[in-house]
């Protein structure tokens, strides 16, 4: 799948290409002059503290938050004109509350298959096979008929991964896939992403803790105050491998730090994670 010819017959050298990308929200620059090139087959982790702009960066890549300056290209095509959405599998940040209208695990995963279905075309056997396979990869085949709301947060995250998997994309874009997910489910997520990565897919994910994903990561990009401050090979976990030398907080209030917290070398060791 790497360097596969695209629809126009030319070799695709970049999957994602952001040049001088900037995003301004309400007059405040959230992303400033960002350059990011992701090549086929790469597994890229974008790390940074809350509010650093890392989520905005990948939202700009998929077009949910179009850049106000610079350019974004997907598979060599300008993002605004890109239409081959079956090549992109997006996993949004898991939202807490639903609307209350029930939806089964199978139905949510099946909605990922819509990129292959024109309007009014019923599900074909290939669609059903793809849905079953995606559920099997994330280990939720036995929960297909259950309402999504009866699953734990980690399992719900795996459903969202399956929804992206089911369209067989070349590029996976994931926003905080491990947030609020317990260790066993983080491992299940990592296993599923390992499967797609081994199959040659490109993965770009935003996280503030790599955890079990670390062995998969080819490249770590650190975003701080809207700029890419670090771009290194391999996994570079901002949470550090171990955080016991740090005083452990026992209250359960949200972590409120001064702006200077997390600056300097300490940030690389344990920044962000309360």
């Amino acid at each position, binding site marked *: 799948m790497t360097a596969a010819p695209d629809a126009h017959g030319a070799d695709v050298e970049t999957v994602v290409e952001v040049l001088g990308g900037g995003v301004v929200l309400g007059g405040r620059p959230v992303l400033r002059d960002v350059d990011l090139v992701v090549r086929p087959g790469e597994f890229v982790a974008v790390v940074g503290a809350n509010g650093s702009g890392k989520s905005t960066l990948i939202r700009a890549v998929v077009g949910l938050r179009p850049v106000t300056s610079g350019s974004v290209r997907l598979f060599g095509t300008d993002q605004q004109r890109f239409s081959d959405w079956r090549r992109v599998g997006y996993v949004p940040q898991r939202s807490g509350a639903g*609307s209350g*209208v029930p939806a089964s695990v199978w139905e*949510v995963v099946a909605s990922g298959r*819509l990129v292959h279905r024109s309007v009014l075309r019923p599900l074909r056997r290939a669609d059903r096979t793809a849905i079953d396979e995606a559920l099997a990869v994330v280990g939720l085949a036995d929960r297909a008929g259950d309402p999504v709301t009866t699953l734990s947060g980690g399992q719900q995250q795996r459903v969202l991964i399956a*929804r992206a998997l089911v369209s067989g994309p070349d590029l996976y874009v994931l926003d905080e896939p491990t947030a*609020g997910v317990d260790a066993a489910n983080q491992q299940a997520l990592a296993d599923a992403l390992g499967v797609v990565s081994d199959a040659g897919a490109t993965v770009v994910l935003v996280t503030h803790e790599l955890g079990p994903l670390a062995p998969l990561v080819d490249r770590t990009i650190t975003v701080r105050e809207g700029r890419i401050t670090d771009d290194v090979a391999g996994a570079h976990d901002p949470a550090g491998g*171990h955080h016991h030398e740090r005083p452990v907080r026992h209250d359960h209030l949200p972590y409120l730090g001064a702006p200077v917290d997390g600056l300097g070398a300490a940030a690389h060791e344990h920044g962000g994670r309360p």
Partner: protein
Amino acid sequence: MIELLSYEFMQRALIAAVFVGLAAPLVGIYLVQRRLSLMGDGIGHVAVTGVALGLATGTSPTWTAVVVAVLGAVAIEVIREYGRTGGDVALALLFYGGLAGGVLITGVAGESASRLQEFLFGAITTISVADVWFTMVLAAVIVVVAVGLLPQLFAVTHDPEFARVAGLRVRAYNVLVAVMAAVTVTVAMRTVGLLLVSALMIIPVATAQQLAGSFRRTVWMAMVLGLGAALGGLLLAAYLSFSARVAPGPTIVLVALAGFVVTWPVGVWLRRRRALRVPFAAETLPVAVPAGAHAVEQHGHEHGDGCGHPAVEHGDHVDYLHDGHRHAPHGGHYDEH
């Protein structure tokens, strides 16, 4: 009772009730999923102006209502999309502007308030043959569109951001839902009335989601419940009208509401039973716990889904309640949180 059914006005009313009962909840489910349960009510208010314009100009109030309701629905959607802050205030302006305008125009045109009341609270038994055709055709169109586009509409209303990255035209589908809601409002106004129309769109959905476990099942259940409420309410009103003045519109809504009241305890029980399968059921959290780390050996298992220990989402990770402690899996052991 049987002889009631031999009246032609009753047959027309029954046909209208069947079509409205099936179509209204089908559109309502998308409104509920988009958290716009009151949108139908708002469109109903705007449609009052449409009815009044029809009465004042001597044209069919049904058609003027359709036009004004669709314009109002699109306006609501545009305001929602671009209004951001103050969007609900703008909606309120539209709602009350529509209602006040309708009442004013009716008065100026010299029509009586009781004529307007037919549209406000429904007058299913005075429905004409032309109106029955109008109801049947438009309701059938709504059912075909809403069922045919079910996968797309489900994706767009369930997770708009994902739908956008999947290449679906989210804005166009949102406008489509709004237009379908407007058409449903005008189709149902002769049956339950503009002020109660939203009830027939929303209550069957609220009832169905107590029991159903999937979107598709919610759709079918809501349609059956809507049909049951419309037919049951109409027949009940007709039966009771031998002894008292019972209006069909409010009876239909109250029958639908009764269905919800009956199923609500069942829904509570179902949800509790399902929740037992999930670890996120902690009622009480231990207050202060001493710091320290348990060794893994003390557990005999790894905390995870279905391990029996209540799980609590804690910031970016999950703690498991264990003998009054909060365990956060970390490396080969558990941190105390």
